[in-house]
């Protein structure tokens, strides 16, 4: 329901208002009858730029794609990588599935909880750290694994973790510890750069 009162509730500038090129490029990937498929890339653009997808953005995406907001929310809530509330500048995700658990992930999790004074799912008041326990990150050979934003830090011992936290508090996140070579390396370094400076990657990465 729109209201036309003199005092209007603050409105949010549409996210894609000044990104028409990007929007057109994303939509061009899908045929007209499959326009709704663009919901994932659009959500991802918003999530990357704003570290969460607010209700206003959900409505905006629904409007763009001609869907109901409920459907966008349904897709968004299915994936744990989209957030309803902003996550911190450093989103710490601790794998606690079997291999990591055997290698000390539970102790790592307890250490982080104590060190950051956060419990699973919380973000600190400053907006610097978010802590989340997740299931297998697929790096079982190098357990325990800590994912910071988009990069993996492997074989994270207590001392290494403390050093990492100190670095992040100085906003000087080091390059991730690389144990496996191959194409992972390139992606990880790129991801680390982006999260270290806190900038959102813009444009189409396809």
């Amino acid at each position: 329901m729109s209201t036309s009162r003199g005092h209007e509730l603050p409105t949010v500038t549409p996210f894609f208002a000044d990104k028409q090129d990007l929007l057109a490029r994303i939509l061009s990937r899908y045929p007209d009858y499959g326009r709704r498929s663009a919901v994932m890339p659009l959500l991802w653009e918003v999530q990357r730029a704003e570290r969460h997808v607010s209700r206003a953005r959900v409505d905006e995406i629904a409007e763009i794609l001609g869907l109901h907001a409920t459907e966008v929310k349904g897709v968004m809530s299915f994936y744990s990588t989209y957030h309803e509330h902003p996550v911190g500048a450093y989103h710490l995700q601790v794998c606690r599935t079997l291999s990591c658990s055997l290698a000390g992930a539970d102790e790592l999790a307890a250490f982080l909880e104590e060190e950051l004074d956060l419990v699973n799912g919380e973000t600190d008041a400053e907006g610097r750290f978010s802590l989340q326990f997740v299931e297998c990150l697929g790096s079982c050979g190098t357990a325990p694994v800590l994912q910071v934003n988009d990069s993996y830090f492997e074989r994270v011992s207590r001392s290494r973790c403390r050093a990492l936290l100190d670095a992040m508090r100085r906003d000087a996140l080091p390059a991730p510890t690389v144990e496996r070579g191959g194409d992972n390396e390139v992606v990880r370094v790129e991801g680390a750069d982006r999260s270290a400076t806190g900038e959102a990657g813009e444009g189409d990465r396809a």
Partner: protein
Amino acid sequence: MRVKVNDRELELAPGTSVIDAVFAAGYDVPYFCSQAYMSPIGACRMCLARIGAPRKDRDGNWLVDDATGEPKVFFFPTMMATCTTVVMEGMVVDTLSKEVKDAQRGMVEFTLINHPLDCPVCDKGGACELQDRAYEYGTGRSRFVFDKRHQEKHHPLSELITLDRERCIHCKRCVRYFEEVPGDEVLDFIERGGHTYIGTLEEGLPSNFTGNITDICPVGALLDATSRFRGRNWEYDHTFTTSLDDASGSAIVIDARTGRIERIKSGINPEVNKSWIDDGIRFGHEYAGDPERLRRPLLRRGDAFEEASWDEAAAFISERLGGLSGKDVGIAIRADATLEEGVAARALAELIGTGQVDHAPRHGPSLVPVHGATLQDLATATAVIVLGDVTEELPALDLRIKDALKGVSPPPLFAHGVPIADLRLKERMPRARERLTVVAPYRVGLMQHAGRPVVVPVGGEAAWLQAMTDVANGTDPDEGALGMGRAEAQGLVRQWREASKAVMVVGGFVLASAKATDAAAALAKAVGASQLLVPPMANGRGLEITQVLPSHARYDYRGMLAGSAKALLLSGLDPARDPATAARLGACELLVVHDLFLTDTAKLAHVVLPGKSGYEKDGTTVSLEGRFLPVRAAPVDNGEAEDLTGVVKVLGEAFGKRLEGRSVRSARRVLRKELGFDPAELDRLGLLHDLPRRRSGVSVGPRQEATGAALRVPTMVRPEYLARNPRLRAALGDLALRLHPADAAGHDLHDGDEVRVPVDGAPWRLRIVLSEAVPRGVCLVPATPDAPVGRAHVALEQVVHERRALEVA
């Protein structure tokens, strides 16, 4: 296809699902996610069975079992969900072996893992699919020793529907329903895995068809808020009847308990409403149990009313009538009266000797089209032209139109009824929007689904229809009235002409004008379309064909009110909102009002007789397609209330006459002669019975058509009872005056303001709703039985604020 189910062999059409084969063979498998008229998805895995089929070798010969010489049956390696498997030649289905029973037991146990088992306090208890299936197919014990999932127990999805998230078993029926049936995707699964729940971001579920999810929910998760905690299922009396809320003839089941209607559920009529009804029909019953209902006749003594017996009331009326000339008496009944009541009204008029008998609301033009269509025709049409706002006027049509866009014809029925799994239906089926053209004087809901929406000016339907007819006939059209380019109009006309079946739905805006109705008939003829004409109330078509009509146009309902009658009997009508009419009614020598409540008109009456609602009558109604349907009375405590046959009985007795319409039975004797069949023998599905157009020679239309820039628009709810339907009122809000935001600014009107405003001179209290769907310069106000759909004058400059909407600081 020859299929063998356990020990029984049967022959089935290709494309049949295995679950229907099992039921057709007389066996049973449990299922939760499949639902008649919706796509099978195989989500709940309850309908597992062992399925095998013969195979062919490379040369196309059946592989033969050496021992028997018969084709060898190869069983699938795992159990198959029968709802998503299609029958094959020579298929063998096993639903009775130990493996199958074990699999089904396992699924019941799994489904019950997170189910709270709060059956003793659950409204679904006793009529619950999960309860039944757990009893029939479960083990009776659980090995799940851990904590069950805890979720919200009383989540109001809207004012009308309450969701219990713990009871939900994630069958996805409700989510699929909204996508597949009304096409309003307002409900979805949120989260995933063990955390999944049903939720919405659309506040209050904006759709006219939300209540159906309470019927199809296999557990007690989705509940009708009007009936929550009102009774147990085994206490209800179920009355299978036909809704008199609109002219669709929708089948309903009235559940009453201790003399009160507690809920209304959808009945099944495959050729009419399938298994769906709109929220107006489902939730609009609370008025029938209103404590202010009249229970005994009232007689005026001075300024006050006194309760009286029916005999006293009848004696008073016959005495007063004795002093009057018969032809000065007018009898008007509301157009949702049954055929039997119509016969009673006619018999009474004959006794009194008056030609002033009519039903209202009634449009001028006949409701029997020259080339009529049925609802099945509409659902299988390849071109649909809609004139008006059917989603509000007759919501059942809206759903049948959406069937036509899917292009899946109604399924053939089995002995066990509608196919449980119709494999032609899929999730997210493409809709052929280009088949649908919607024409209305404002943006209506159905336009979202239309290939060609056309917004015409108020009263501009006749001109548009005329212009399109000109295009069809190859003459020069008035291009300004087309609302589109000439080439596009020609394309549309060609599409309608070439369609294998074209149906035109004509709503109230067109029927309100004789000129527009003629133009619609001419266009339908020019493009070869058949027509469905939407009556203003449930039995408009029936009362027309049984001739509950005045002997002369000037004796119609408007004429009676304007002064042609000195004494009036009004059944269900309330014209006193208009001050001039109220003054004339006050001056009547005799005013008898037969109604449910002490309405404004009843307050002016000499005698008030208690009436029955549409849920309490026995009788017959005729739907818009000409289908004769039975109406049956639910056991409701209504005091001494009578329908019109009861009124005529006591009046006849007071005159010492046994009238033909003195009871439903005697009225049916008359109808049997007139119709050629006995209405008492109608079954629930009704009878399509074509009667010739039987209009007497006189034109019985209103003498002059309404004018004005505003419109009285149809609403799904019955405005006259909205105030007495608290749930529906809370969900949909008070009666609204809708207008464009830019128009509102000039009159200091804001969204949500409550105002008093004159509509055609009668005072109305309305809530302001601002909407871009309304064109500039147009106001939309609700239509009522006494002021039916059509044009009106709304004096916006005389608006008085009753209550302003809350200021947002």
